[in-house]
């Protein structure tokens, strides 16, 4: 643990009257999702990186905003070994009213969050899309900056409904996450009245006895559908599906057209400036992989810092800021570079936001589509809405 050298350029001079808030970044020393994920062809698929680069962009960007509020952020990195170590270090190091950005794989994320229930610190999930954290296991000190799985799948279903591509062939892998992904797709299809032509499991094997699961002609034949949707965590199978289908149909999910919180080619609402700050300025400070673009986790890390900086009150006599309370302010709204202000859903603390639908090199759509009306927020057509949610903070 220690202050990161890269931020020595930030005002550490925090004068006496300044409000200083502590923001921690919690991550594992050995994060399996940061290991290079190589398929046997040597390609890296769906690799994750430490969120530090997104955090760095956020800290640099908010420096002047904080100067105006006579406030500053002290940023601290916490490296841990496992769940127990994480809970122990947070208990020892994080004072009440501070914030922790949680950059953990799903299993550890759930356990650490559960272990910190009831604590007076703001936990910001910048990585996990798991529904349980927002629904059955939701927690008052927990905020979700990254979209939920259902926000992603709802945006795909809404995208299909807008185009009137109503019949879907759903291909599902065998990974545990493929199954949760498929469940989310099915719920989203039902919500937006997309018909499931068939749901079929695929297998990465070459075993001729499994040919109905690995032969694409067989897998995509003998059904009537407008579009193929794939649930594929690893991404190795799905990249061979486009153009290999029995019928000439578009392919969505997996490694083709996909729902994203952010995309490097997004060019509206100030996005080129944010992407350039990430690509050019931050790469000289953080050497995780110099030539990479901002992904969903990087974006969520950036947005989390921005959310914290925006939540701080303007200079006031009371200089003690409780971030947990500041983030619960129902009027909190922050520019998230996607065309509408991001605010926090009162019932489960999920950041309300548009979702982008993108290919490898172009953003094809931004959801929600205004054709889908909502009594309060268009964005609340994505994900589980208040009346359906089992979580009730408000």
């Amino acid at each position, binding site marked *: 643990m220690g202050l990161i050298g890269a931020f020595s350029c930030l005002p550490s001079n925090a004068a006496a009257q300044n409000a200083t808030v502590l923001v921690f970044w919690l991550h594992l020393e050995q994060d399996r999702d940061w290991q290079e994920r190589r398929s046997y062809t040597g390609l890296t698929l769906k690799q994750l990186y430490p969120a530090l680069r997104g955090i760095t962009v956020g800290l*640099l*960007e*908010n420096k*002047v*905003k904080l*100067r*105006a*509020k006579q406030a500053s952020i002290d940023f601290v990195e916490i490296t841990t070994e496992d769940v127990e170590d994480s809970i122990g270090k947070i208990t020892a190091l994080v004072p009440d009213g501070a914030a922790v950005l949680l950059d953990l794989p799903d299993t550890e994320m759930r356990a650490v969050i559960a272990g910190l229930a009831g604590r007076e610190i703001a936990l910001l999930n910048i990585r996990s899309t798991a529904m349980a954290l927002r629904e059955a296991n939701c927690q008052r000190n927990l905020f979700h900056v990254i979209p939920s799985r259902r926000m992603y799948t709802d945006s795909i279903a809404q995208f299909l409904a807008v185009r009137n591509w109503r019949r879907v062939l759903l291909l599902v892998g065998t990974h545990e996450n493929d199954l949760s992904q498929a469940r989310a797709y099915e719920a989203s299809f039902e919500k937006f009245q997309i018909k499931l032509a068939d749901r079929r499991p695929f297998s990465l094997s070459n075993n001729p006895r499994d040919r109905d699961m690995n032969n694409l002609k067989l897998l995509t034949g003998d059904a009537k559908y407008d579009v193929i949707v794939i649930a594929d965590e690893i991404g190795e199978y799905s990249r061979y599906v486009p153009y290999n289908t029995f019928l000439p149909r578009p392919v969505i999910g997996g490694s083709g057209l996909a729902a994203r919180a952010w995309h490097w080619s997004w060019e509206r609402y*100030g996005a080129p*400036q944010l992407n*350039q*700050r990430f690509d050019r300025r931050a790469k000289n400070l953080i050497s995780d992989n110099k030539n990479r673009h901002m992904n969903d986790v990087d974006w969520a890390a950036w947005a989390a810092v921005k959310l914290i900086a*925006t939540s701080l009150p*303007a200079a006031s006599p009371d200089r003690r800021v409780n971030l947990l309370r500041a983030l619960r302010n129902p009027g909190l*709204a*922050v*520019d998230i570079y996607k*065309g*509408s*202000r991001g605010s926090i859903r009162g019932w489960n603390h999920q950041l309300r936001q548009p979702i982008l639908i993108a290919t490898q090199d172009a953003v094809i759509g931004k959801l929600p589509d205004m054709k889908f009306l909502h009594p309060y927020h*268009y964005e609340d057509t994505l994900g589980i809405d208040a009346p359906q949610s089992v979580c009730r903070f408000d």
Partner: protein
Amino acid sequence: MLKQLTIAAFFLLLTSPVLAEGKLVVSNERGNSLTVLTLDGDILLELPTCGRPRGMHFSHDKKNFFVGCADDNLILVYDSATLEVSGRITNVFAPETFDLHPDGKTLIVSNEEDASATLWDWTTGAFIAEYETGEEPEGVQVTQDGRYAFVASEAADLVHVIDLENGEVTFDIPVDTRPRRFALSVDQTQLYVSAELASVVNVIDLDQMKVTDTLTFLPPGFRKEHVTPVDIILNRSGELGFVALGRANHVGVFDTSTGKVLDYILVGKRAWGLALNHNETRLYVANGLSDDISIVDLQKRRSIKSVKVGSVPYGILVFD
């Protein structure tokens, strides 16, 4: 080359008398061009220019105008009569918009990707000074006496007040989400700031240096999130204000004494840039997402014509 010459000759031949009567110049951010039109919206010429032309401004005598080229780190100086480049200010990092100091020489430029505002002498191209701002500085406004410059930082939700005499940023005024452009009241006591994502215009009292009033705009049938105000201008007497409402595809007209909205004028998609003609009978509106400009009759307060220009029009200058 021959073709270019022919076009240029043709243009001069055809338009010399028209130039005297006035013209419009529109910067097309994505088309890397300037569209030149008559005041009635007849297209005279589409002139290739630098990379990503955005903000434009006249010199005081209007004999020159300036075009900020965001992708070329350049400001071009044009001769208004011949439409030829007569000068260039180089190494201006990603210029977005700018204002001209009352001294007639100093351009105050927001450098969008560099979190700074820079000062340049356009007559020599010399760099004068630099001030640190929040990320994505956008609108720039100089006071009539030349003492202060205001720069909006889109990402920091701040208006920076630069004291040009003492050479320092003296105030950071918190405003609503994503501040874009300015208009200064005739008596120099109030500064209007459009806040794009908050769907409002903040009014800053310049004695107190803080927001004292906020104007909201909501054309019938739209939701707050459609209303994304960008350009804002006042008429010469300062009684009327005009705000381009972006995604709400309207221009809002307001009374500056009461702050009341008087009218909404339907224009094209994502209205951003605004300009008035000299006798204030017409308002020109650049519509970024329908690649056209709207010509508004201000007696009727209705759009009377829309004209296709280049790709993603940004700003408009009126020569009349």
